[in-house]
């Protein structure tokens, strides 16, 4: 199964998110109150490692294991990053979870978080429905 390798990366990703407590509502409260460096350290060091590796991939013109050219399409700026970003941030702070942690928490046995996932699916669907009418 060619997709199993993505699942393996997800397993490591989920284990790390959970053990470093990035999935915790308490840590998100602490982050938005600027009371610890923990979450900023996680995001900051992840981004530094990401920047260096993306730079290296481009510099060395590395190909994927299938021999494909690695392409990173530019994300186009639109007003969605402002309006949607603000709404997302509000949800992130209120529920103390973003999409990765939602899945991690369910795996960790916090089953009521399934309600959060179901609501996020509904939110995604409602956005999709109203997308043509929203400012972008």
């Amino acid at each position, binding site marked *: 199964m060619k997709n199993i390798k993505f699942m393996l990366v997800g397993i490591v990703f989920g284990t790390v998110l959970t053990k470093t407590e990035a999935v915790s509502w*308490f840590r998100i409260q602490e982050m938005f109150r600027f009371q610890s460096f923990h979450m900023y350290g996680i995001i900051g*060091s992840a981004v530094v*490692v990401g920047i260096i590796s993306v730079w290296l991939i481009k510099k060395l013109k590395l190909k994927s294991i299938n021999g494909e050219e690695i392409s990173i399409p530019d994300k186009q700026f639109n007003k969605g990053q402002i309006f949607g970003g603000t709404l997302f941030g509000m949800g992130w702070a209120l529920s103390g979870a973003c999409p990765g942690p939602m899945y991690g928490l369910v795996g960790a046995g916090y089953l009521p978080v399934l309600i959060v996932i179901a609501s996020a699916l509904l939110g995604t669907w409602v956005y999709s429905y109203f997308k043509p009418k929203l400012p972008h």
Partner: protein
Amino acid sequence: MIELLKEPWPWYVSGPIIGISVPILLLIGNKMLGISSSLRHVCSAVAPFNIQFLKYNWKAEIWNLFFVGGILIGGFIGGVLLNNGEPVAISESTVKDIKAMGIQSFEGLVPSDLFSWKNILSLKGFLVMVVGGFLIGFGSRYAGGCTSGHAIMGLSSLQLASLVAVIFFFIGGLLMTHFIAPLIYQL
């Protein structure tokens, strides 16, 4: 060794591992890290109706569902198998602020005062779980990504749009944490 793994992992261990997932996904499949997309794929698979934004071949993106399935398994490994039973080691000042909002449970990763099945029937639980979740789904798709797609993947590839998104994630988060959420948690 297991005892050491059960301790909470410091940021300088977890952050770099999270960051390295960016090149790994690119190298093993030319895939860009992004988790909120999984929600769109599920919508497209289950309830596309006639919505333009949901009419695409989600099966071509199935790797993403395997990836989030892996996160769920990782949550079990990190949250159950490697659980040390200690409360999350947040700072004293955060504990004080959270107590001041009427939260009493500091067990586990999320407070049971807010997250429980029966709470869905209360206004507080409904706002935290249902409205919060709705904002996460609606907002991340509207913004074109979430913490992983914009903050990690987008910033790693120096995308200006992602920087704007991350700034507004924080504006929204700060508004909620300091002005709105305390009123909701105290309901």
